[in-house]
């Protein structure tokens, strides 16, 4: 501070002695202190741990060789008469290192001879640190800007770049350089639009956006320029390449054009499956307008009771897996119309590979589906008819046998008997023949009656059903067979607690119980006391009757195939007519049930009657 030395001495002295004043000291040509401020004295104490005094050689006081030689160099330079400023760091290398701005200058006597030097020191440590932080911060900002694909610069009202921050898309817009004009890199019409926007942005201090196309290297690219007011003469500008975005927008536009005019329903949803757009075809089929469905999920209001859950779940899984999805299911229109819809959909991805939308085309296939269902039903019906026919055919065959044997046989006998009647005059013989004729005719009549009963079962159109109690029915049948039970001394027990009631034909149930009980009594074993047990159970939601006895039993390997046939008897019993089992089998089957037998010869027999899944039972 050369000027300070020309000021009055007391002023100088005040500066030197002020405890928190400036750091200032002066040395003579031998580097010995000629004056120093109090602050310098305390700093020397702090840094080098020395108490300085006038006349001390300062170089001797600096405890670091490098610092000492640096200081000597500067002192000598000042002693040559030069004024200069040096930013230096002094202090212990490991700590207390401090930045100083040292202003050196020579001290001259009145005649201009250099007699020493003065040093005025400003501590700029904080300044240095702030500067460093700023540099770091700017570096960080730069690196961020470099990553941004946008072009960012400042531009003034004249269209001149005042600062370029990021030049990522430079190649597409020319080379913006500070001081250049935008007219150099842009077509003139676009440059005009830029200038208009910049002016408006600065004048109104408002954000401006323009979109433009640039044709370079045979390709059209889309850009968006945003202008943000920076100050009264400059605007911050961000230019973004929007080519891909435009392209997908255009694709979507094209799709929506197709969608708008197709007769099918088209649904576009967001990535959550919420409707963003539907076409007129959708409204035509579902009766819902776009306004009514926007933001809703299609499944929430289109599906209902008859919507196939398997198909729906499969499609939801496909959507969840971000796959294309398809299926056919029942939907419901706003007015409740039920229709079949075929859905073909796919996810729409953005550039980052994320699903942003779903696009689905839906066509109504009600007519085809109904035809399919009808066909299936017809097929099922046909199968049922075929099965029925097969059964009828079997029954017919059975009938043929019945007719051939049970009718042909007595009729043949009658013919032969009449032949013999004509061939004899003997009264006794004639009487015998007539007796045979009578027996044969009553047998024929009985057979006719039985066949009639069977026919009634087989061709009964409507069988009256009632809720019946097994116990009541069984007690009645027991009463009817009381004589036989007493004759055979049989133990007849029952347990109908597991299925107490049944909705069934009362005539058939009575016939079933009666035939099974009388059979069990008829074919009881003479070797032991007959034990007969009736019991109901429920198996797979069906009432089942079990009738077991310890009677003669039957060799099923031998007679199994004939057990339920008409006129098949397996024991030489005088009352065996071979009608009962044939009859009840027909009754049970006519109502959709089954009857099966298990038996061991000379051990006993169990009949199992399954009344059919369609019959109601009660506990």
């Amino acid at each position: 501070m050369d000027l300070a030395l020309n000021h009055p001495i007391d002023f100088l002295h005040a500066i030197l002695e002020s405890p928190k004043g400036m750091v200032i000291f002066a040395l003579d040509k031998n580097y010995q202190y000629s004056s120093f401020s109090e602050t310098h004295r305390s700093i020397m104490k702090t840094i080098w741990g020395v108490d300085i005094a006038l006349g001390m050689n300062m170089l001797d006081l600096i405890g670091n060789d490098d610092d000492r030689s640096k200081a000597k160099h500067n002192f000598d330079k000042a002693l040559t008469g030069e004024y200069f400023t040096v930013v230096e760091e002094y202090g212990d290398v490991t700590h207390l290192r401090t930045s100083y701005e040292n202003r050196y200058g020579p001290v001259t006597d009145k005649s201009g001879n250099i007699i020493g030097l003065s040093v005025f020191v400003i501590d700029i440590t904080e300044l240095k640190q702030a500067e460093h932080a700023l540099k770091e911060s700017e570096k960080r900002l730069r690196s961020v800007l470099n990553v941004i694909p946008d072009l960012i610069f400042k531009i003034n009202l004249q269209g001149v770049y005042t600062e370029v921050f990021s030049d990522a898309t430079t190649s597409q817009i020319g080379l913006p350089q500070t001081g250049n004009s935008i007219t150099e890199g842009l077509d003139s019409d676009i440059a005009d639009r830029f200038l208009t926007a910049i002016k408006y942005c600065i004048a109104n201090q408002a954000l401006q956006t323009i979109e433009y196309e640039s044709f370079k290297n045979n390709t059209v690219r889309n850009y968006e320029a945003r202008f943000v007011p920076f100050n009264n003469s400059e605007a911050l500008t961000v230019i973004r390449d929007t080519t891909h975005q435009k392209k997908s927008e255009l694709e979507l536009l094209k799709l929506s054009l197709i969608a708008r005019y197709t007769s099918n329903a088209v649904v576009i949803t967001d990535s959550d499956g919420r409707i963003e757009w539907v076409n007129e075809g959708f409204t035509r089929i579902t009766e819902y307008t776009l306004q009514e469905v926007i933001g809703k999920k299609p499944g929430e209001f289109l599906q209902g009771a008859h919507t196939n859950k398997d198909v729906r779940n499969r499609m939801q899984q496909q959507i969840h897996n971000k796959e294309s999805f398809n299926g056919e299911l029942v939907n419901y229109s706003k007015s409740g119309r039920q229709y079949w819809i075929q859905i073909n959909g796919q996810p729409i991805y953005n550039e980052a590979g994320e699903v942003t939308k779903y696009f689905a085309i839906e066509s109504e296939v009600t007519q085809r589906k109904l035809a399919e269902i009808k066909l299936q039903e017809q097929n099922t019906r046909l199968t049922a008819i075929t099965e029925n026919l097969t059964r009828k055919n079997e029954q017919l065959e059975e009938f043929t046998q019945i007719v051939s044997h049970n009718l042909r046989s007595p009729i043949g006998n009658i013919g032969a008997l009449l032949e013999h009647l004509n061939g004899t005059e003997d009264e006794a013989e004639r009487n015998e023949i007539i007796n045979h004729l009578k027996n044969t005719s009553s047998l024929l009549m009985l057979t006719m009656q039985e066949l009639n009963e069977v026919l009634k079962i087989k061709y009964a159109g409507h069988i009256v059903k009632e809720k019946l109690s097994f116990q009541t029915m069984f007690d009645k049948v027991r009463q009817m067979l009381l004589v036989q039970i007493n004759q055979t001394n049989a133990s007849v027990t029952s347990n109908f607690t597991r299925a107490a009631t049944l909705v069934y034909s009362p005539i058939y149930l009575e016939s079933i119980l009666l035939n099974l009980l009388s059979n069990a009594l008829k074919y009881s074993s003479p070797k032991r006391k007959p034990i007969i047990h009736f019991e109901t159970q429920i198996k797979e939601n069906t009432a089942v009757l079990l009738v077991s006895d310890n009677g003669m039993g039957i060799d099923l390997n031998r007679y199994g195939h004939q057990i339920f046939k008409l006129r098949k008897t397996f024991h030489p019993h005088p009352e065996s007519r071979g009608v009962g089992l044939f009859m009840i089998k027909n009754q049970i089957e006519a109502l959709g049930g089954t009857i099966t037998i298990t038996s061991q010869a000379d051990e006993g027999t169990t009949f199992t009657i399954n009344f059919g899944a369609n019959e109601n039972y009660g506990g």
Partner: protein
Amino acid sequence: MEDKAKCIAVVDDDDTFQFITSRAIRSLSGENTILQFFSGVDAMQYLSENALNPDMLPDVLLLDLNMPVLDGWMFLEEFSAIKKTVAKEISIFIVSSSIDRNDIDRARQNKNIIDYIMKPVTVDKFKELLSPDKGLRSSTL
């Protein structure tokens, strides 16, 4: 025609048929013997008991198909099991009212059966059956 006396077994549970058949056979010339069995079981028992005694065995056996307990087919099964021990060649005819094709075919395939005769059987038919050169297939079917 000169008939040698024959022994004829009738196996049928229908007593009217037995009556008619007996009368028809008796009306024919020759001292024919008639064995009546009202069940397959009875017939089987008789044949087993008299298997070694040719004088007691029938020359001809008329077999009904539809009988309780042991029907015609079961009788044939059991008979083929003892056939080798039976001391006489017995000509077996099925006599049935069944017009079931299955029964007729089954009878034709059984080598133990001479013929299948459908009921009713006329007196002339019996004559033909018992003629000495019989034992061959007739044109009944």
